[in-house]
């Protein structure tokens, strides 16, 4: 009961954020948190539900960002066309990875994803004619909705909020569906699942495609918000951040990545306020270690466990 009330309050707060948040800087932090929520949820599909870790997820994010930016800049496409195109392109890349890494599990799958991301990153730096290389793509136009340009922060915030909510819904439906149950079965015991007729390959590829497409959407939203795309979107540190969000928040749950995304987007910014620049990253590392130590299953599962234990 209490949980419901709190969730309702949180939802209400999020929806009305532009009204009560004191400064546009916080709205900026929430927008970034929203984009990372989509990313975390997408990674969670792979990691939490299939048990396969993708350490190249920044590649799908970057592909989405570049696709959207290039279509808008070079072909003058509207944002509402560029976004789905970004999703499709990223999804296609996810399909490629899924089929490539068909038979690989565990550490090997991880390494293929890292290598794939590495190659894509190098292509973005070196293929000057397409991506403008390290010089990046400045001036990505903001979305237009009829007569309005979604250039203001509150407008963009609602766009991102809608995107995040939609992503959550998609994941929610997917997880509760037959597909979701098949994925969990595969995660828990693959040979057994296969023995009852669940085609591992088909479901893993499906999970990879959806996961990548969602990351591509996040990339598009990022590109049109920051209005500048450069090869740094492929930085390994982005993937690391996503992984932290999912695992610390609680993989295999739906709320976990959301909380992880908000927490770990707000944390570096809060550290900016609280700690002198020399100590910020060190503090970040220490917080991470401490968090993992006290909540090794992630925030949400630990909370759920505690609540269950209190029931008796």
């Amino acid at each position, binding site marked *: 009961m209490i949980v419901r009330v709190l969730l309702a309050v949180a939802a209400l707060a999020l929806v009305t954020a532009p009204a009560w*948040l004191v400064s546009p800087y916080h709205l900026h932090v929430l927008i970034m948190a929203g984009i990372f929520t989509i990313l975390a949820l997408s990674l969670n599909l792979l990691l939490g539900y299939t048990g396969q870790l993708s350490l190249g997820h920044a590649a799908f994010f970057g592909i989405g960002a570049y696709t959207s930016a290039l279509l808008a800049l070079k072909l003058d496409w509207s944002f509402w066309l560029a976004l789905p195109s970004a999703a499709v392109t990223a999804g296609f890349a996810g399909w490629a990875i899924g089929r490539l890494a068909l038979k690989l599990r565990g550490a090997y799958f991880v390494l293929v994803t890292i290598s794939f991301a590495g190659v894509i990153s190098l292509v973005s730096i070196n293929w000057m004619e397409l991506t403008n290389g*390290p*010089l990046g793509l*400045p*001036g990505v136009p903001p979305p237009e909705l009829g007569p309005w340009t979604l250039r203001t922060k509150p407008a963009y915030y609602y766009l991102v909020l809608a995107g995040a909510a939609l992503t959550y819904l998609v994941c929610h439906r997917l997880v509760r569906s037959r597909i979701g149950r098949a994925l969990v079965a595969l995660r828990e015991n693959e040979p057994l699942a296969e023995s009852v007729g669940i085609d591992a390959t088909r479901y893993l590829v499906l999970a990879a495609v959806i996961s990548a497409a969602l990351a591509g959407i996040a990339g598009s939203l990022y590109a049109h918000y920051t209005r*500048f795309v450069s090869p740094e979107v492929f930085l390994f540190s982005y993937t690391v951040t996503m992984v932290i969000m999912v695992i610390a928040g609680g993989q295999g749950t739906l709320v976990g990545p959301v909380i992880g995304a908000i927490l770990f987007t707000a944390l570096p*910014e809060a550290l900016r306020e609280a700690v002198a*620049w020399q100590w910020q990253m060190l503090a970040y590392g220490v917080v991470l270690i401490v968090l993992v130590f006290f909540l090794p299953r992630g925030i949400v599962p630990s*909370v759920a466990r505690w609540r269950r234990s209190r029931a008796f």
Partner: protein
Amino acid sequence: MLTRALATFVVVLLALGVAPTTGDAQAPIKIGVIQPLSGPVAASGNYVRMGAEIARDWLNAHGGVNGRKIELVIEDNKSDPKEAASAAEKLIVRDKVPAIMGAWGSSMTLAAMPKLEEYGVPMVVETSSAASVTKRGNPWVFRISPPSEMEALGLEQYVDKLGVKKADFLAVNTDWGRGAIQAFGDMLKKRGVQVGVSEFMEQSATDMNAQLTKIKGTGGDTLFLTTAVEQITLVLRQGQEQRLQRKVITTGGSSSPTQLIKQAGAAAEGSYHIVFFMPWFPEAMPDGKLAKAFVEEWNKRGHPFEGLTEGFRGHDGIATIAEAVKLAGKDEPKAIRDALWKVSFTGVNGPIKFDKDGPAGKESGQSKPSIFVVQVRDGKVALPDFLKK
């Protein structure tokens, strides 16, 4: 537990929101500084910061600006464009700085630029070299560092005296390196110099033997090198190991010849360097007295001597902003922006005055910094023969 977690979360959010602001008339003038203080180029970012701090202390020692003290609000952009944009937003919105200096690398600067337009706050660019920085039509950008094209022009007069007939390029694979190859290549071709191969190295690469082996096979007489001092050290050392015999000219001003001599030793002998500050003979700078005083103060604070070739940028950036605030009479962003067009004084590098650059109607400001060439001879930095009068 969930309640506690949520409560903490809400409290944190509120804490970020309701920090009190001081409305005192004698409050200090805040200037934002965005630099890469961690990550692979942390050294350079910190040198710029040190130079900025010297400028601040000197200004405050002389009564500040318009009777108020200068305060630097320093943010780390972690060598990540996303962080540079966040830092700019935080400085403008939370700290309410009326002007910023930053953000070192061109990608970082480009990422922060939309925020300048969004909120109407000017930024003085102290290091970035990509042409696009001042050509984007952003009227809030003022650059005191030279774009690669200007650098190449600065070297043009010496090309014959240096005896460059066939040149190869080795550059770091970033906007800076690529821009330099483009600019210097164009300049050399205009003067009839043959251009050989252009090789690249990743920013974090430590082994350049493959590239050097290729370069060795071209038969050129000069190697143009554009990267930071660490990679230059490695390239020179590995070039020595491969017995690469040719003239080396480094561009970009980040070669820190003193550090190079220390770390590359004999391998650095004979190399030429384009620099924007000559701390070895400060009297030769346009304002010799100021340059000498800067070097002395830097040494007094125990900062590494090799950092001077980059640290001066921090000084000149802050001095430029302070000059604009003085002319404007108040620390209000638009007034400072307008005043920047009127600024005309001499910094450590030389005269600083902004010309219009970029699309008509929304020009950015670009100053014409002084460009120098030095050479490493007998384990010391000296003026090249053809410059000695």
